[in-house]
Each structure stands twice: as C-alpha cells, then as structure tokens.
C-alpha cells in the first residue's frame, strides 16, 4: 500500500469509534433530545472520516468526490432530520429531560 492508502485506512479506523459512541449515546442518554445530540454530531464526523479515508485510499479524484457527495448528503439529512424529530417531539408534548 502507498502512504496515501495507509493514511486513508487509519482515517477509516479513526471514524468507526465515532459511530460506536454515537450509538452508545443513543442507549445511554435519557431522552429524545439528548439522543439526537449524540447521533447527529457523532455520525457526521464518523462518516466524514470514513468517507475522507476511503477517498484517500481509492487514489482516484472522481471516487473521492463521489464519497464527499455521499457525506454531504448525509450531513444535510442528519442536520435536517434531527431538527424535524426535535420539532415533532415538542409538538407531541415531549418534555426535555432534566429541564
């Protein structure tokens, strides 16, 4: 493997724990709002690192751009999705924990 591929692989390895911790947060946090915090933020960075790493690993500009596009769409989806879920929860009268 080239140096670029090694850097890519280690970025992927660095990204995976963020997914795990985001999911752990889903289990450990007390209510829908705090869980949204955990998911939206951790997965954004986790996927970003994985996509960036894979892009470097592939060594092809078009592949890297495609992966960046996937990450961008996912970031948009998770940002908007988190807002929608929070709004829906408030509309249904869910009270935030510990407030």
């Amino acid at each position: 493997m080239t140096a670029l591929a090694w850097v890519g692989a280690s970025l992927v390895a660095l990204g995976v724990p963020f997914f795990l911790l985001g999911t752990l947060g889903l289990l450990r946090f007390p209510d829908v709002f705090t869980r949204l915090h955990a998911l939206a933020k951790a997965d954004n960075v986790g996927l970003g690192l994985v996509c960036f790493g894979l892009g470097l690993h592939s060594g092809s500009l078009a592949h890297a751009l495609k992966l960046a596009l996937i990450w961008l769409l996912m970031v948009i989806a998770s940002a908007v999705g988190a807002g929608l879920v929070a709004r829906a929860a408030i509309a249904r009268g869910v009270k935030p924990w510990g407030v």
Partner: protein
Amino acid sequence: MMAWAITAFDALLVALLLWLAWQAIHADGLFRAVISFMVFGLLMAVAWVRLDAPDVALAEAAIGAGVTGALLLSALGRLPERDKEAPADRRARGLAAVGLAALALGGATALATIAWALPAPGLGREVTEALPKSGVDNPVTAVLLNIRAFDTLLEIGVLLLAVIATWALGPMQWSAPARVMSPALPVLGRLLFPMFVLVSAYVLWRGGHAPGGAFPAGALMGAGGVLVFFAGAKPWITGAELDPWRWLLSLGLVAMLVAAVGVGATGRSFFEYPVDLAGLFILALEVAAALSIAILLFALCLGGRPPHRWGSEDEA
C-alpha cells in the same frame, strides 16, 4: 484471517436479520414493528451484496426501505387510535402457535434442503451465450428487457393493476401532509429533487453495463417523488380524466407492448428485436419503464385516487 472475518460478518448479518424479522412481526407497538421492518429491508440490501446480487441490492434499498417504508408509515398514521394496538398479539394462542411453528419450521427446512440438494440450476451459460446479441453488457438488464422481457411486461402490468385497484377503492386515504412540519422541509425538497433526478438518470445509464437499470432507477425516482410530496410539494399527477401525467402510468406497458408486437410486423416473434437494433430497443424501453415505474410507485403511495386539482388548501 479474512475468511474468518467474512464468516463472522455473515453470521452477524443473519442473526440481525432474524431478530429484525421477529421484531417486525412480534414487537410491542405497530410503530416499532414497521421501523424494524424498514431496517430489515436495508440490511437485506447488504445481504444481497454479500450474495453477489448488486442489482437486487439497489432495488431493495430504494423500494424495501424507501417506498414500502413510506407506504407502511403513512398507513400507520391513518389508522384510527383504537385500531393501532393489538393487545393479544403476543399471547397468540399457545399450543396451536407452537404446533404451527414446528410445522412451518419443519416444512421450510425440508423445502430448503430439497432445493439445496437439487442439481445446481443454471441458465447462466445460455445467458452468457446470448449476451453479445442482446444489445447490453449487463446480463440482468439483458434478461429483464430482452431475453425475458415478457416477465417485465407482465410485471409492469401488475403494478398498473395495483394502481387501478387502489384508485378504484376511492379517493386518497392519506392526503398531502396536513401541515408542513418545518420550514426546513421545502428547502430540503428543493435541494434534493435535482439530486434524485440526476442519480436516477445515472443509475439508468449504468444499467447498460453494470448493476443498475430501469427498476432501481424507477424506484429511486418514485421514492424521491414520495419524499418531495411529504415535504409539501404538489404532485403533477391528478385524478382528472384528461391529465397528461396520467398517461405516464401506462407508458411503460404501452411501450413494451408496442415493442413486442411491433417487431412482429417484420415477421419476427414476440420481443425478438433485430440484433443490430437491440441496444436501441432496450434503451427506449428502459427509459419508458423507469419513468412509468417511478410514477406507478408514486401513485401507489398516494393511497387512492388523487384529487382533480391539488388545491391551495393542501399546502397550508
């Protein structure tokens, strides 16, 4: 090391799929069941990739998790409150259930064993031989739109029948979302709509030489339509009799019939395209089928005949 890791991955995937299927049928609360089923569909897509069926994986991801999920969730929203919970679900009559379960497990295992013991099937060689004459490089597309185009014709027919059946049952059962949940939704819809158009076209183009084609593309476009519909867009298709968009519903079926019978004019049999024009035939049919499948799936998700005109009250 690699083989070991792959086996472990397969085992994990299989266990998750079984658990999710169980959840989809027996979890407390219909909402949980439906979500479990959607995740089941997504993981099935991974299983298809593991089984070297990327074409199926693409369709499953778009349809299984997208369109079916939208259908089930909007149905859930329309069920009256009293009907939502099924209290006796879990304590399904004990002995009968156990007996039935044993019988079903036995039967299914026996069937699977028999199927496994049968000589390995294979039309693979025949398809490989016919591929150069089919007009495309992707064998699945060749089978769908040339070698077994008859199946596809009937399939689009079934889809059209399903739309007719749901429209015949009466007006829409779930109208456009009662209120736009958030001002972010139209912005998202505006941003994502071109993405759906471009990616569907890309998947359609890829179908000629790689996994992709009319079905995943149509499913993707249909799912995109459902998404922008729930984001508050007014659909083009209406219930009015002379609505030009309604013709798109039958476009796929009509195009395939014309192709099938049209070649008969030159003394050929059903769906026997002229070899040098086969690529062109498939291209035209793919575009027609994809557009048609997209709008058929969208029409199914409306859950009934749409109104004659999408009034301004729908967007309030």
